């Protein structure tokens, strides 16, 4: 059956089995490839999207569980205040190396910042430890989150 879900503010109809992970609906059905596949088991965070503003792993979020919740992906997170500040800080600190994990990192970091204006190191550990970066950009991820937290909100 088809599922109607709201992605980045637009209602989309997706005809797949209800147990299909959202990740594949995004990437393969809708062609929104910014959200990445890394493990398929909620172990790496590459597939992170926002479900009503909270970071979730789309590889284990089935399409039939989304309901009326609003999905935001990396393609549109820049339109949120926290997302824009995170992206800007990411560029300023040159966080990305291969870049593959960074969609997920940015989605997790944006959700953190949206809910916590001044995250501590422990908050950052909690929010970000589900996101693996094989290129080891952790030092800069931490710095960039702190930079984003300092930047004035209106700039974002």
């Amino acid at each position, binding site marked *: 059956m088809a599922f109607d879900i709201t992605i980045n503010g637009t209602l989309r109809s997706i005809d797949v089995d209800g147990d*299909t992970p959202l990740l594949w609906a995004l*990437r393969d059905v809708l062609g929104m490839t910014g959200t*990445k596949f*890394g493990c*398929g088991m909620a172990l790496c965070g590459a597939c992170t999207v926002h479900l009503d503003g909270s970071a979730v792993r789309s590889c284990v979020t089935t399409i039939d569980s989304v309901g009326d919740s609003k999905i935001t*992906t990396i393609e549109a997170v*820049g339109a949120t205040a926290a997302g824009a500040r995170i*992206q800007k800080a990411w560029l300023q600190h040159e966080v990305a190396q291969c*870049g593959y994990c960074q969609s997920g990192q940015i989605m997790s970091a944006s959700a953190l910042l949206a809910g916590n204006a001044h995250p501590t190191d422990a908050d950052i550990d909690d929010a*970000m430890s589900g996101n693996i970066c094989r290129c080891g950009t952790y030092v800069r991820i931490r710095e960039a989150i702190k930079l984003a937290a300092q930047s004035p909100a209106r700039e974002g």
Partner: protein
Amino acid sequence: MIHHRIAPTASYADLSRRNFLVNSAVAGSGLVLSLMLPFGQGKAVGAEDFTPNAFIRIGADGEIVLTMPYVEMGQGTYTSIPTLIAEELEVELKQIRLEHAPPNEKLYANPLLGVQATGNSNAIRGAWRPLREAGATARIMLIAAAAKRWGVDVASCRAEDGRVIHTASGRQLRYGELAAGAAQMPVPNDVVLKRPEEFKLIGTPAKRLDAAGKVNGSAVYGIDARPPGVKIATLAQSPVFGGRLKSVDDAAARAVKGVRQIVRLDDAVAIVADHMGAAKKGLEALKIEWDEGPHAGLSTQDIAHELEQATLKAGTVAQNNGDADKAMANAETKVEANYQLPFLAHATMEPMNCTAHFRGGECEIWVGTQAIARVQAMVAKAAGLPVEKVIIHNHLIGGGFGRRLEADGAVRAVEIAKQVDGPVKVVWTREEDIQHDMYRPYWVDRIAAGLDKDGKPVAWSNRFAGSSVIARWLPPAFKDGLDPDTTEGAIDLVYALPNFHVEYVRVEPPGIPTAFWRSVGPSHNVFVTESFIDELAAAARQDAVAYRRALLDHNLRAKAVLDLAAEKADWGAPLPKGRGRGIALQYAFGSYLAQVAEVEVARDGSVRVHRVVCAMDCGTVVNPDTVQAQIQSGVMFGVTAALYGEITLKKGRIEQANFDTYQMLRINEAPAIDVHVVRSTEPPGGMGEAGTSGIVPAIANAVFAATGKRLRKMPIDAETLKA
């Protein structure tokens, strides 16, 4: 197109292959300079003839385009490489646009270039001279064109900010206006390069040119390719290497919504579907029986045993100075140890994938590869087509580390695509990616040293056994039982070691393929030599830094980084109980690096790396920001290996499958990393891999300092460190 062959520049006779060609045939096309960039160990292996693989084009519109064969894997190549040209051409970095060279041009069909590849550390090392020479050559020709136009002496003109200026009159012309004229000028055969103190761009932090798409989801990796009509496939390959598909019951898989086709290969099954969700569901529904073949009983212990036995027999002498046997016999004390390093998977964040469209007479490929010409050659073979019928689109790479120097993923995609109507994207599950990787080899080292009465080493003897990746990957570079990668870090040590003997025994274990892994040789050898020199210091009851330092009087660059790392890490300052500092020093990839790790060993034996201090001399630094980033990256990669990295075989199958069983370091475990770079005007060394090899022994040595327990096998086994 007419290409004028030009003579090598007189002053660099040794660089005779690095010629330039100027294409001046097409009027109005501007200035096109062709050159040849080296690969591999700093040279184009086997390519004695001039075969251009990079092009600089200055158009009449002023646009400067560099077409080059290196790929961006996250190491900043796309920023550092154009810096070299911009520096000599006197333009801003952002004025240069990069294009990746397509593989299907005639020049890439040259079999001599079948080894074209971007290893982590070699792009800048190889391009350092030729690209600056190319920039200078273009600048001289542009100046000559302007001088001719104005009827003035070239010496009265200068280049600045993309223009040529006649200093006396203040007249100026932009490069675009001069490009066509410059193409008619003679190619200078004596190019004087800037001295380091004249550099404006080299050595200045530059923003990465590839960053924006990586923060908004628009960067396109191989896995993101979506040619029209593409189907998605995933696969199960024989869980035992060398096994065969016996039978498959696909009734349940066929019933899955979105599943389109089941493809059977000799040693694999693939499910072709509308999307990966359906393909994975279909895969899980298959009932597969394998004929597991000859390696069905294989275990890691079998391989370790085979390698241990191999170290008892003579190998190929990799280096011999003096008489190690005699010096050993006369030594006051003898220290002996055996070391072992495990198989490791790459686990690039982007799982293996490749999209292929087989159309009978030709085959089109979408992939992210470090070795585009290799992929083209192997796809051609698998497809039964001539290479020119293979069209390859290269993409960004979600992590290389050596994994994407291999073409096995593309070959699989073609085997599947041959049975599919239309394009098919083959995406490996993480489990397939880890269980059908090609692994960093297992190593066993038998090492010994003799010390004199002052504890100084007077004899050193090391025999190690394991796979040679080069022998398979680049056979001509494996000569007389040796290759330059396998032995790097085991020979030519930084220390003064008078009687020195190293042997390598090549053993290719059955049932598990091996490959490069963020280097191979140094990631193994530096662990062994730097752990062992630490053992010698302990045996001599001397401080680990002082002991190394006393062996470095002849090697000032090495001594300088050792001193700097020790100073910045507060070497010698007291630490709380359970904590320790360890040091490692290496010369590898053309760079000197000293690393100090500070670790804490908990009562349950678990190890936490708190802080890492690195002192690096990597010659001239092109982009300091990239050096910092690359060292940090290499360190995290090495910490992961030390704490978690281990691939094991049981009954022929890889036991690890996903990030729960093959763990990666996470942000909450990541150490603070300080990187201190020594100013240098030596040619650039590599840094992409350097951080990884030294950190592992630094951690092991720190654990020894904290607990008195010597780790001779990686990864760290917490059981053995329990209080």
